[in-house]
C-alpha cells in the first residue's frame, strides 16, 4: 500500500478474559472515506482507541504515512494528525464556537487569548471546508448538526489529516445527514482522510470508498464499496443473512389504552418542553413518535412514567387517571418502560444481571417474602429471561456493566415485557445496537403488539419509525404536529415535518 496514511497491521488487544481485537488490519488511503463496520462489541471502538492512543496493543504495529509509530496517548495521536469526533460531543455549552475550538490550544498575545485571531482562523477553516459555522455563536444556541461541525472543526484546527467519526449520523435529521455527507465529500477533496465508524449500511453505500468489516474481534476483510451491496455487507458483519424489512401483519387496533390530553411538562430548567400535547395509543398498535431529539420526547415519557411532574393536562391508562402517579404506581398500573438511556436509567450496572431483572418487582413474591429476598427465585427468574431473550452473558451473576450494549438492552426488554404490561413504552430501543439485535428487538415489539398490547415507540431513527410503527405521530416543539400512516408518507415529508416546516422550501436540496 504505497499511499496509505494509516496502517494498522495485525493489531491484537486483549482485556482480562477476552480478546477484543485479534489480528485486525486496517489500511486507510489518502483522501478516502473508509468505513469501519461491525456489530456492537465487535471491537470497533477498541481498535479506534488503539489508534487514538487510549489503549496499547499487545501485538501489531501502526504506521502513519508509512512510518512506524508508537501512539502512547491521545496527544501523540493529535501530533500525528489524527483527530476523533466522538458520538457524544465534548463541547462547553456556554462558550462560543471559537472558544470551544481553541480550548486547550489558544492563540496568545501578551499572555492573553487572542480571540480575534482565533475567530479569523476558525472562519477561514469553516470557509475552506464548506462548514458554514458562525464562529461567534454560542454552542447552546446552535443545532446538533452545527455542534457536530464544531467538533469536526476542532480536530481540523488541531491539524488533523485523518478524521475518525464515531457514529456521526446517530443524532441528525435526514436533512442534516445530507449536509454532513456533502461536508465529508468536500473534506476528502481537500486531502483529509476519514474513518467512519458506523453500522448503518445505507450510509456506507452512499459515501464510503472502502469498508473494513470486523466481527467478534476478528478482521473479516476490506471490500471496495462499489463492488458490494448492503446485503453482502450485512452478511459479512453478522455472519448470517439478515432480514431488513421487518415482517409484520396489519395492525388490529382495539380499545384505547393510553390517552393523553393537553399535557404540559416543564424540564428541570423550568422551560416548558411539552406544550399541550394530545396523543392516543390503542391496544394492538404501535405508535411511533418521530422527531428530532430535544423536542419534548424525553419530558413526555418522563411525565407518563411518573419521573417528572406535569404542569397540567391528563394521562389516562385504560380510562384510569394516572397523571402524576409515582413511578411505582405507574408501573403497577400496567406500564413498562424501556428507557432511552439504559446505563443511566435501565440498569444498575454494578448489580449482577440477575438482580437487575427484578428491579421493579423485588418487593413482591416470590422474589421476596416479608422483606427477605429470595435469591433462589430471583436468579431462577433471571435465568429464564436470559434464555428466553437470548441475553449472551457468562452467568446470571455477571455484573450488568460487563455486558455488551445489545445484551444489556435485551435484558431490559426481557424484564419489561415479562411484566405483561398494557402499555409498553420503548424509547430509542435500538440506539447504538447492531443489525442483529435491532432485528430481534423489532420482532419483540411487534410480538407484543400482536398480543394486544399498546406500544409507544420513540425513536430518532426514521427507518425504525417507518418500519415498525402502525401509526406515526410527528413531534415538534412539544406538540404532535401530524398523524400519518407509514404507508402514506416518506422520509422526506417526515423530515420536513420534524424540522417544523410544513410546506415551505420543499424544493431545497
Amino acid at each position, binding site marked *: 500500500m504505497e499511499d496509505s496514511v494509516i496502517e494498522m497491521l495485525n493489531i491484537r488487544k486483549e482485556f482480562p478474559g477476552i480478546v477484543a481485537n485479534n489480528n485486525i488490519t486496517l489500511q486507510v488511503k489518502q483522501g478516502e472515506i473508509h468505513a469501519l463496520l461491525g456489530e456492537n462489541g465487535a471491537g470497533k471502538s477498541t481498535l479506534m482507541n488503539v489508534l487514538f492512543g487510549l489503549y496499547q496493543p499487545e501485538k501489531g504495529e501502526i504506521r502513519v504515512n508509512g512510518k512506524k509509530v508508537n501512539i502512547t496517548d491521545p496527544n501523540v495521536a493529535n501530533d500525528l494528525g489524527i483527530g476523533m469526533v466522538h458520538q457524544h460531543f465534548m463541547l462547553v455549552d456556554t462558550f462560543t464556537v471559537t472558544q470551544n475550538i481553541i480550548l486547550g490550544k489558544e492563540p496568545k498575545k501578551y499572555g492573553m487569548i487572542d480571540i480575534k485571531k482565533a475567530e479569523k482562523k476558525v472562519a477561514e477553516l469553516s470557509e475552506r471546508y464548506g462548514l458554514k459555522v458562525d464562529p461567534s455563536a454560542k454552542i447552546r444556541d446552535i443545532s446538533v448538526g452545527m455542534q457536530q461541525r464544531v467538533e469536526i472543526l476542532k480536530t481540523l484546527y488541531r491539524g488533523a489529516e485523518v478524521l475518525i467519526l464515531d457514529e456521526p449520523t446517530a443524532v441528525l435529521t435526514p436533512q442534516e445527514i445530507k449536509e454532513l455527507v456533502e461536508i465529508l465529500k468536500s473534506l476528502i477533496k481537500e486531502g483529509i482522510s476519514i474513518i467512519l465508524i458506523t453500522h448503518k449500511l445505507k450510509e456506507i453505500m452512499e459515501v464510503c470508498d472502502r469498508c473494513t468489516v470486523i466481527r467478534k474481534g476478528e478482521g473479516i476483510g476490506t471490500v471496495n464499496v462499489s463492488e458490494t451491496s448492503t446485503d453482502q455487507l450485512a452478511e459479512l458483519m453478522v455472519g448470517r443473512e439478515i432480514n431488513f424489512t421487518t415482517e409484520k401483519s396489519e395492525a388490529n387496533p382495539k380499545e384505547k389504552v393510553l390517552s393523553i390530553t393537553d399535557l404540559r411538562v416543564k424540564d428541570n430548567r423550568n422551560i416548558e418542553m411539552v406544550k399541550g400535547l394530545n396523543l392516543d395509543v390503542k391496544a394492538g398498535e404501535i405508535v411511533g413518535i418521530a422527531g428530532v431529539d430535544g423536542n419534548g420526547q424525553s419530558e413526555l415519557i418522563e411525565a407518563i412514567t411518573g419521573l417528572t411532574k406535569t404542569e397540567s393536562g391528563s394521562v389516562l391508562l385504560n380510562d384510569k387517571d394516572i397523571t402524576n402517579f*409515582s*413511578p411505582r*404506581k405507574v408501573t403497577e398500573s400496567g406500564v413498562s418502560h424501556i428507557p432511552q438511556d439504559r446505563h443511566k436509567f*435501565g440498569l444498575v450496572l454494578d448489580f449482577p444481571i440477575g*438482580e437487575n431483572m427484578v428491579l*421493579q418487582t423485588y418487593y413482591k413474591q416470590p422474589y421476596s417474602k416479608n*422483606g427477605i*429476598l429470595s435469591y433462589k427465585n430471583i436468579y431462577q427468574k433471571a435465568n429464564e429471561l436470559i434464555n428466553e431473550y437470548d441475553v449472551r452473558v457468562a452467568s446470571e451473576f455477571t455484573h450488568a456493566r460487563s455486558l455488551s450494549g445489545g445484551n444489556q438492552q435485551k435484558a431490559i426488554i426481557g424484564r419489561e415485557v415479562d411484566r405483561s404490561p398494557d402499555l409498553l413504552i420503548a424509547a430509542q430501543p435500538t440506539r447504538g445496537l447492531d443489525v442483529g439485535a435491532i432485528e430481534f428487538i423489532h420482532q419483540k415489539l411487534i410480538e407484543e403488539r400482536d398480543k394486544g398490547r399498546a406500544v409507544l415507540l420513540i425513536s430518532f431513527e426514521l427507518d425504525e419509525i417507518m418500519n415498525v410503527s402502525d401509526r406515526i405521530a410527528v413531534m415538534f416543539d412539544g406538540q404532535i404536529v401530524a398523524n400519518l400512516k407509514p404507508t402514506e408518507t416518506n422520509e422526506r415529508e417526515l423530515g420536513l415535518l420534524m424540522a417544523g416546516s410544513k410546506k415551505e422550501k420543499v424544493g431545497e436540496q
Partner: protein
Amino acid sequence: MFTNRMFNILVPVISVLLGLLAGAIIMLSFGYNPISGYIALWNGAFGDWYFFGETIRQVTPYIFTGLAVAFAFRSGLFNIGAEGQVLVGWLAAVWIGTTVDAPMFIHLPLAILAAFLAGAFWGFIPGILKAKLGVHEVIVTIMLNYIALYSTNAIIRSVLTDREDTTDKISESASLSADWIMQLTAYSRMHYGILLALLVAVLIWFLIDKTTLGYEIRSVGYNQHASRYAGMNVGKNIIFAMVISGGIAGLGGAMEGLGTFGYMPAHSGFTNIGFDGIAVALLGGNTALGVVIAAFLFGTLKIGALNMPTGAGVPSELVEIVIALIIFFVASSFVIRWMLLRLKKEGK
C-alpha cells in the same frame, strides 16, 4: 467474579503491608530498629491478657463507627459525621445511665437505645437535608460534628453537673463492664460491648445483603436514576440510610459511655473514633465482615503502638507517623482503586 474478589482482598492487604514497610523505613532512617519496633507493637497488643483486653476494648467502638460509615457508603452517602454521632450517643447513654433508676434488664437496653436514637437523630438531619433540599451530606455532617462536640460539653458542664468536667459514674445497672472479664484480663477495661458489636455486624450484613431494604439501599447507592425509574423512593432511602448509620455510630458512643469509661468527660477535641471509622470502613471494603477485620487491625495498631516507646525506644511521635502512613496507604489504595475504575469506565 473471582478476580473481583481477589482484588477486594488483595488491595487492603497490600496497602497494610506497604504502610508497615514505609513505617519500617522511617524507623530505620531515624536510627531505630524496625523489627524490635514491630515486635513491641505486637506485644503491646497481644503480649498478655491485659493488653489483649485493651485491644478488644479499642476494637469495639471501631466496629460500630466502621459499620456506620460503611452502611452510608453503600447507599452512596459519605457520613463524615460519625464523630458527632458518637458524641451524642455517648452523652445520651450516660444521661440515661446516671439519671434513671431501674433494674438492669431495663436500664442497660434503655441506655443503649437512647444512644442509638441520639445518633440516629444526628444522622437524620443531614439525611433529610440531602433528600429534600439536595444539601451535600459531607458539609452538614462536618458542621454537626462541631455542634455535637460543643453541645455535649455544654450539657455536661451545665445540665448534668454543676460546672464540672465529667459526668457522674453511671449506675451498675447500666454498665457493660463485668467483673469476670476484668479479672480474666488483668483489670483491662474490656466489656460486653464486643458481643453487641459483632451482633450488629451480623445484623447489618443481613440487612444489606438479604433484605429488600438492603436491595434498595444498594440500588440507590449505585444508581439513583435507575432506582427512581424502578419506583424506589430515593429520598426515603437516603434518610433511612443516614438514620441507621447515625444510630450505629451512636452505639459506638454508648460503648465508651457504658463500657470503657462509665462516664462522659467534657472533650477538648474530637475522640477520633468516628473519623477512624471512615478508614476502617474503607479498609474493610464497606462490607460487614471487612469492617470487623479492619476494626481489629486499627484497634491493634492503636493499643500496640502505646508499647513502642517503652518496648523498643521508638518515640511516640514516630509511632504516630507509622500509624498515619498505614492509614495513608489504606486511603490511597481507595484512591487508586477509584481511579482504576474511573479509567475503566471512561475507556469504554
